[in-house]
C-alpha cells in the first residue's frame, strides 16, 4: 500500500467534517406539521375510494394492529386534518409530504367531485433544484374530502415495510421551497458519501478498465463491471441517473437499477475466480464459485422477468433467497480461504469480502445506504491494493522466469558440444603439427574453426536451417573421425521429399546424440565394423531424425563407466526433451531411444528417433 494512503484518508475525513461544520448552518425550521393517519390494507387493486367510502370501510389505527406491507397489498391511508383546519385557513396553498412510494395516488376534492392524482416515484412530479426531494403535493382547505380528510393509495414494491415508519406532514409554501431549493447539514450528510463513493468508483473503473484493455486479463474486466454495477445500484437515484438514461421512471428503468444488486454479486464471484485462479489453485472452491455464479446469473434473469412483468412480490422473495445464499456462501468461503489460502491474494479476498458483506447487511437491516457505501468503499480500496499487489507479484515472477529461461538456454547450449571434444580435436591438430603434416593440419584447423563459428552463431540463433545443421554434423563427424583415426564409418542421408533449405530445427539438437553414439556406442566396440547412420525422413507434419549405431548398446556402456563416471546422471537427454517440447509446442514425448537386440537378445546398438514438427 502506498505510504501516502493513510494521510489521504485522513485528509478526506477532515474535508468532509469541515464542510459539515462550516458551510451548513440550519437555515430555519424545515419541519412541517406531522399528521396522524389510519390505514386500510387490501389486496384488491380495483377498489376505488367511492366504494370504500360507500361501504363504510373502517380504517384502523396503526397502534392497534401490526401491519406489514407487501408489493401486492394496496394501502389506503386516511389522513385526518380536522385539528388543523384553523391553520389551513390562513393560506391558500399548503403542501403534503410523505415517504416515497413506487405507486401512489392522492385523492382530494376538486369542486364537487373527488379526483385522484398520481404522485408515486414512477410519475413525473414537479421538483426544485434539490436532488434529494420531490415536491410535496399542493392542497388547501377546499381540497379536503368531507371537510377534513385526504386519502392516499400507496404501494411499496421494493421491500417489505412497516407503516409505523411512515411519516406524513404538511408544510407551508415557504417550508416547501426551503426543502426543494436548499440543502441542510443532514442533506449533505447524505450526499457527500454518495459523491465521494462515485469518485472512488470512477477512478477504479477507469484504472481497471485501462489495465484490462492493456493486459486483456479477465479479472480486471470483471472488477470493472463489478464497480460499475455497484455504482449504479448505490448512487443511481441520488445522481438522478434514471432521468439521464430513461427520461422517465418506468418498469424498465426500475429493473435497470434493481437488477444490478444481483449483478454486483455475479461479477464479484467471477472476479474472485480469475483473481485467485481458483480453477488451478482451489479446485473445490472453484466448483462452488462456478455453481454460485450460474445461480446468480439465473437469479438476475428471473429478477428482471419478475420486475418487467410487475411480479414484485416474487422478486422480493427471490432477492431474500439470494441474500441468504450469498451470506452463507460468503461466510463459508471466507473461512475456507482463511484456512487454505496459499498466498496473500486469498487474504485480500477475505478482508475485502468481509467489509462488503458488513456493508450489505447494514443496508439490508437498517435501510441505511451509508453502511453499504462505506463497506464497498473499503472493499474497493482493499482490492485496488490487492490488484496492485497481484500485478507486482506477477512482475517479480516474470522477471524470475526470464532469468531462469535465460539460464536454461545457456545450460542447453552448454549441454551441447562437449568440451572434451573441443580440446581433444585441438590435441589432434597439435599432433598433425608435431608430425609436420602441414596440409592436413591446415585442413582440420579450418574445419574446427568452421564448427566453432557455427557454435558461436547458434548461441545467438535458437533455430537453424536443416542444411546448416547437417553441414555442422558433417564437420563434426570429420573431426571425430580424425580424432579417432578413422576407426568408424558414418553416413548422413536425407529423404528426397524433404526441403532442407526451408525446414528449421533447434540448433545443435542432434550433435549430442551423435557424440553419444560414437563415444559410448562405437568406440568401446571391439570388432572393426563400426557404423553410424544418420537419416532424416518426413511423415505427416513431422521431421524424424534417426541416429543409429551398431555399437555395444546402452546397457554395456553404462557398465563400463567407472570410479569417476558412475552415478553421474546425464542431463543432456532431459534438456533436449525440454527443448523439443518448447519447439514443438506439445508435451508429448518427442524423443525415443531404442535398444536394438538381435534374435539371441544380445545388444546390437542403439537407435535414437527425434521428432520435430515442421
Amino acid at each position, binding site marked *: 500500500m502506498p505510504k501516502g494512503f493513510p494521510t489521504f484518508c485522513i485528509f478526506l475525513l477532515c474535508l468532509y467534517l469541515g464542510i459539515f461544520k462550516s458551510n451548513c448552518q440550519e437555515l430555519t425550521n424545515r419541519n412541517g406539521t406531522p399528521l396522524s393517519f389510519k390505514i386500510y390494507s387490501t389486496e384488491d387493486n380495483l377498489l376505488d375510494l367511492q366504494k370504500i367510502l360507500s361501504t363504510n370501510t373502517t380504517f384502523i389505527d396503526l397502534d392497534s394492529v401490526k401491519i406489514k406491507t407487501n408489493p401486492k397489498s394496496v394501502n389506503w391511508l386516511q389522513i385526518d386534518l380536522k385539528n388543523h383546519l384553523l391553520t389551513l385557513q390562513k393560506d391558500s396553498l399548503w403542501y403534503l409530504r410523505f415517504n416515497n412510494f413506487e405507486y401512489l395516488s392522492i385523492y382530494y376534492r376538486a369542486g364537487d367531485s373527488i379526483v385522484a392524482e398520481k404522485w408515486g416515484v414512477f410519475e413525473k412530479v414537479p421538483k426544485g433544484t434539490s436532488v434529494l426531494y420531490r415536491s410535496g403535493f399542493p392542497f388547501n382547505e377546499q381540497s379536503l374530502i368531507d371537510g377534513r380528510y385526504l386519502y392516499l393509495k400507496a404501494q411499496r414494491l421494493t421491500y417489505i415495510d412497516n407503516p409505523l415508519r411512515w411519516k406524513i406532514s404538511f408544510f407551508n409554501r415557504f417550508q416547501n421551497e426551503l426543502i426543494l431549493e436548499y440543502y441542510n447539514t443532514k442533506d449533505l450528510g447524505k450526499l457527500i458519501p454518495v459523491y465521494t463513493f462515485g469518485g472512488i468508483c470512477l477512478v477504479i473503473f477507469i484504472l481497471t478498465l485501462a489495465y484490462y484493455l492493456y493486459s486483456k486479463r479477465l479479472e480486471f474486466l470483471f472488477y470493472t463491471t463489478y464497480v460499475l454495477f455497484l455504482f449504479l445500484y448505490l448512487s443511481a437515484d441520488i445522481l438522478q441517473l434514471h432521468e439521464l438514461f430513461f427520461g422517465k421512471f418506468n418498469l424498465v428503468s426500475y429493473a435497470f437499477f434493481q437488477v444490478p444488486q444481483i449483478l454486483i454479486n455475479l461479477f464479484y464471484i467471477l472476479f474472485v475466480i480469475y483473481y485467485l485462479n481458483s480453477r488451478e489453485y482451489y479446485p473445490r472452491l472453484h466448483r462452488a464459485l462456478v455453481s454460485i455464479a450460474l445461480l446468480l446469473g439465473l437469479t438476475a434473469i428471473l429478477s428482471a422477468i419478475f420486475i418487467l412483468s410487475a411480479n414484485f412480490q416474487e422478486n422480493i422473495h427471490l432477492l431474500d433467497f439470494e441474500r441468504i445464499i450469498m451470506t452463507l456462501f460468503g461466510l463459508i468461503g471466507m473461512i475456507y480461504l482463511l484456512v487454505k489460502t496459499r498466498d496473500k491474494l486469498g487474504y485480500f479476498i477475505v478482508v475485502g469480502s468481509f467489509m462488503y458483506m458488513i456493508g450489505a447487511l447494514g443496508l439490508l437491516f437498517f435501510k441505511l445506504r451509508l453502511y453499504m457505501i462505506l463497506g464497498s468503499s473499503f472493499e474497493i480500496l482493499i482490492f485496488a491494493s490487492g490488484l496492485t499487489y497481484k500485478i507486482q507479484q506477477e512482475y517479480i515472477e516474470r522477471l524470475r522466469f526470464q532469468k531462469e529461461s535465460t539460464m536454461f538456454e545457456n545450460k542447453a547450449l552448454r549441454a551441447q558440444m562437449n568440451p572434451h571434444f573441443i580440446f581433444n580435436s585441438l*590435441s589432434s591438430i597439435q599432433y598433425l603439427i608435431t608430425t609436420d603434416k602441414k596440409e592436413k593440419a591446415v585442413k582440420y584447423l579450418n574445419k574446427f574453426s568452421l564448427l566453432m563459428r557455427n557454435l558461436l552463431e547458434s548461441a545467438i540463433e535458437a533455430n537453424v536451417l536443416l542444411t546448416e545443421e547437417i553441414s555442422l554434423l558433417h564437420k563434426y563427424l570429420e573431426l571425430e573421425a580424425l580424432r*579417432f583415426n578413422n576407426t568408424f564409418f558414418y553416413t548422413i542421408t536425407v529423404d528426397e521429399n524433404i526441403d532442407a533449405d526451408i525446414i528449421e530445427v533447434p540448433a545443435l539438437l542432434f550433435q549430442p546424440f551423435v557424440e553419444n553414439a560414437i563415444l559410448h556406442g562405437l568406440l568401446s566396440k571391439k570388432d572393426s565394423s563400426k557404423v553410424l547412420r544418420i537419416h532424416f525422413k518426413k511423415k505427416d507434419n513431422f521431421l524424424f531424425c534417426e541416429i543409429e549405431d551398431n555399437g555395444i548398446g546402452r546397457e554395456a556402456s553404462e557398465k563400463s563407466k567407472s570410479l569417476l563416471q558412475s552415478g553421474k546422471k546425464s542431463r543432456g537427454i532431459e534438456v533436449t526433451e525440454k527443448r523439443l517440447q518448447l519447439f514443438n509446442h506439445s508435451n508429448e514425448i518427442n524423443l525415443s531411444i531404442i535398444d536394438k537386440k538381435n534374435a539371441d537378445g544380445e545388444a546390437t546398438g542403439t537407435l535414437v528417433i527425434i521428432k520435430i514438427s515442421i
Partner: protein
Amino acid sequence: MTLKAIIIDDEKHSRESLKNLVEEFCDDIEILACLSSVEEGLIKIPRLNPDIIFLDIELQSGTGFDLLDQLENISFEVIFTTAFEQYAIKAVKFSSLDYLLKPIDLEELQKSVEKAKKIKDRNVYSKQLEILLFNLKQHQPSLNKLCLSTADGFEFIEVEEILYCKAEGSYTTFKLKNNTSLMVSKHLKEYENLLADQNFMRVHNSFLINLKEVKKYIKSDGGYILMNNNDPVSISRNKKDQFLDAMNLIMKL
C-alpha cells in the same frame, strides 16, 4: 640421469602428439611406451618400471584413477593429462598433484618434467596419491582431504579443520582449528573454486571462511564475523545478504 616415461591415452593422436613434444623439447627423458587402456597399463607398468607416467584421466575403458587404484605398488610419478578442467581435475588439485591440459602447452610440459626430476619423499608422494583416491571414492561432491604444498613440504589436512583462509598477496594463509597457520603459494581464488561447494564462502576480498565455523555475526562497526577461535573476519558490504542467507541454510541442515 635419464627419466623413463610412459604415456597412457586412449586417443592415438594425443599420445603421438605428447610423445613428439616430449622427445623434441624435453631433455633427459625417454618414452618407453605409449599405452591406450587401463588393462594395458596394468600389465605393462610393473614390467617396464617407469619413473614418470603421463596419464590421461578420461580413458575408454575407465579412468586414469582406476588404473592407479588397481596398481599395487606405485613407484613412479604421475602427471595427469586431460582435455577439460572439471571435477576430476579438482580432485587432483586437492592432492597438489601435477597435471597438464590438452592440447599440451610446451612450457607447462617442460616445467612438469623438471619438477618430476627432483627427488621426492616417496612417503609424502604416496600420501598425496592416497588422498586423491580417498577423495574420489567419497560421495560427490565433498572432497574431504586437502594436500597443501607449503615452503617446508606438503601438509595434509581435513577440510573440516580449516577455520578460514586469508589472502596475503599471491599467497594464502590457512588458519586451522588447532590454531596453526599454513602459508601456501597459491592465490585465494584457487581455493575459493576448490572449496566453493563445501560450505566455504568468500565473504571478503581477503577472506574465504568455513561457514560451519562461524561463531557470531556482529553488526556494529560496519559488520564483521567472529570465528570459533574468536578471530575477527571482515565482511564486504555487498556480501552481507548472501552470507546471512547462506548461514540460514546451514542452520537448517
